[in-house]
């Protein structure tokens, strides 16, 4: 490849007046040819990152740290990021939403171009991203980190308008506050219903953490109230530990109907606050409907999603299996054994940055080793944790070993784990936004 382009350079020099400009272009073409990246002829490689969450922000920053010459653009319409981890504490009145919010000022200060716009189009052939204001961004490598899109077509009656009455609170922000206000306004003795979708979903233990913290609030303020989880799953991670904690801390307050007891929600009616499963009808005082999810919309626009609604990737490089020169990280990718979490997204973002710099340099990237950790609060200052180390195996990540992944004593809830969770949150947000 390099030799072919080298001869191309000489042909060009032969047939054109040898200007300084031509020589530079030719020389760049040689460098580019070595990488099979003709568009590098413009100079430094350009990497665009769509999505400024834990994955995208960590990736953009790591790219600049690894190679300060890279032109990195972060495309994100929100000027303020609102973090999901710890947002269940906001719902329960234990924390303010402002503590969840981070600006992109420090990201921009790293020399990353911050495009405060939505990406509306991806042309994988031309390697361009269309932005909402009509401008176009060219890239050599594109990272998609769009997170999730809530499927407002999955549950009959539950569309975006319905979510203003029956909040999902599955993207942190106004929805988080709406659910909190509804709980605060609820009479004592009310029924809080939480609808939980089947896997895969963002942050699998979060519905159970949410039930725990809402129970904590209700026990103190509205002790006659109850929480009902309607779950499209039969089993979930750390189930025994959650159930034990509910028995100890909130006896009789939390009931769960799993899939094989008819817990799968099929429709919701915002006019009556009714939630319907295959086998029952429930009228909620407060209805928290978490709908099924898929990869953020731009992933589908880019052609990176398959029939599952998620993005299949080569787990060794995060490259899309469907479109060239596009990497997918975070919640949007089919991560196999790695749960969709902030921690996983951040780890993938950093590993993907390293992979991209290697690929741009024409080197073979080493397979990533990812660490994921997940804390679930059962009460203020009392939490569970689990984690694992994951490595690629074909298209998915496989858990190499677990950190407290089994129902053993290392996994028991504690105050220390709640403290560790706070440190973790500080670290991961500093990493991405600090």
């Amino acid at each position, binding site marked *: 490849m390099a030799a072919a382009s080298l001869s191309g350079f000489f042909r060009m020099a032969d047939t054109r007046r040898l200007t300084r400009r031509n020589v530079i272009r030719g020389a760049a073409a040689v460098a580019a040819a070595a990488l099979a990246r003709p568009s590098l002829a413009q100079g430094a490689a350009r990497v665009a990152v769509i999505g400024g969450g834990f994955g995208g922000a960590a990736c953009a920053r790591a790219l600049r740290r690894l190679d300060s010459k890279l032109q990195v653009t972060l495309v994100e319409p929100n000027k303020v990021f609102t973090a999901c981890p710890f947002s269940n504490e906001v719902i329960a009145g234990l924390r303010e939403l402002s503590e969840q919010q981070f600006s992109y000022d420090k990201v921009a200060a790293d020399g990353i171009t911050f495009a405060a716009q939505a990406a509306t189009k991806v042309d994988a052939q031309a390697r361009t991203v269309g932005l909402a204001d009509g401008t176009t961004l060219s890239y050599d490598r594109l990272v998609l980190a769009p997170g999730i899109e809530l499927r407002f077509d999955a549950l009959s009656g539950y569309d975006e308008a319905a979510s203003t009455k029956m909040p999902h609170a599955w993207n942190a922000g106004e929805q988080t506050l709406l659910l909190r206000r509804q709980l605060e306004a609820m009479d004592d003795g009310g029924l809080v219903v939480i609808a939980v979708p089947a896997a895969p979903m963002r942050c699998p233990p979060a519905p159970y953490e949410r039930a725990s913290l809402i129970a904590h609030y209700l026990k103190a303020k509205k002790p006659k109230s109850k929480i009902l989880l309607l779950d499209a799953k*039969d089993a979930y991670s750390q189930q025994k530990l959650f159930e034990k904690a509910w028995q100890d801390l909130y006896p009789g307050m939390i009931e769960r109907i799993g*899939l*094989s*007891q*008819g817990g799968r929600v099929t429709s919701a009616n915002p006019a009556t606050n009714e939630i319907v499963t*295959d*086998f029952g009808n429930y009228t909620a005082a407060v209805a928290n409907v978490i709908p099924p999810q898929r990869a953020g919309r731009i992933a589908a626009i880019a052609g990176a999603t398959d029939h599952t609604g998620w993005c299949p990737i080569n787990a060794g490089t995060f490259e899309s299996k469907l479109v060239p020169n596009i990497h997918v990280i975070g919640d949007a990718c089919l991560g196999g054994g790695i749960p969709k979490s902030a921690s996983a997204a951040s780890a993938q973002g950093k590993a993907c940055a390293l992979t991209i710099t290697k690929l741009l340099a024409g080197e073979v990237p080493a397979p990533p080793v990812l660490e994921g950790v997940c804390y679930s609060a059962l009460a203020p200052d009392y939490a569970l944790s689990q984690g694992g180390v994951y490595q690629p195996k074909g298209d998915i990540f496989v858990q190499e070993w677990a950190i407290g992944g089994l129902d053993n004593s290392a996994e028991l809830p504690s105050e220390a784990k709640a403290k560790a969770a706070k440190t973790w949150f500080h670290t991961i947000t500093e990493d991405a936004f600090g």
Partner: protein
Amino acid sequence: MPSALINVPAKAKRGDIIEIKTLMSHIMETGYRHTASGDVVPRDIITSFTCRFNGAEIFRADLYPAIAANPFLTFFTTVTESGKFEFEWIGDKGFSETASASITVE
């Protein structure tokens, strides 16, 4: 503990197409698995499901080891008169469960 879940509309208009949903809790052990010591875990599945309306069979399904635990069967029928749906699940190891639900047709 086997338990049946049934969803039949309580009321319908004559000639309406209605959906019936059923779920039977069952392990559906395939018979292809082995224990740590190498013994075959004996097959234990539901083999047959039947729905009768006022005594006449309207739906039947044969089940095989590939079907997952807790079989969830849903089907449609047209109702012409008020009456009673009777459901029956039969399986290995003498498994036999029944359930019923009534419908009023207006």
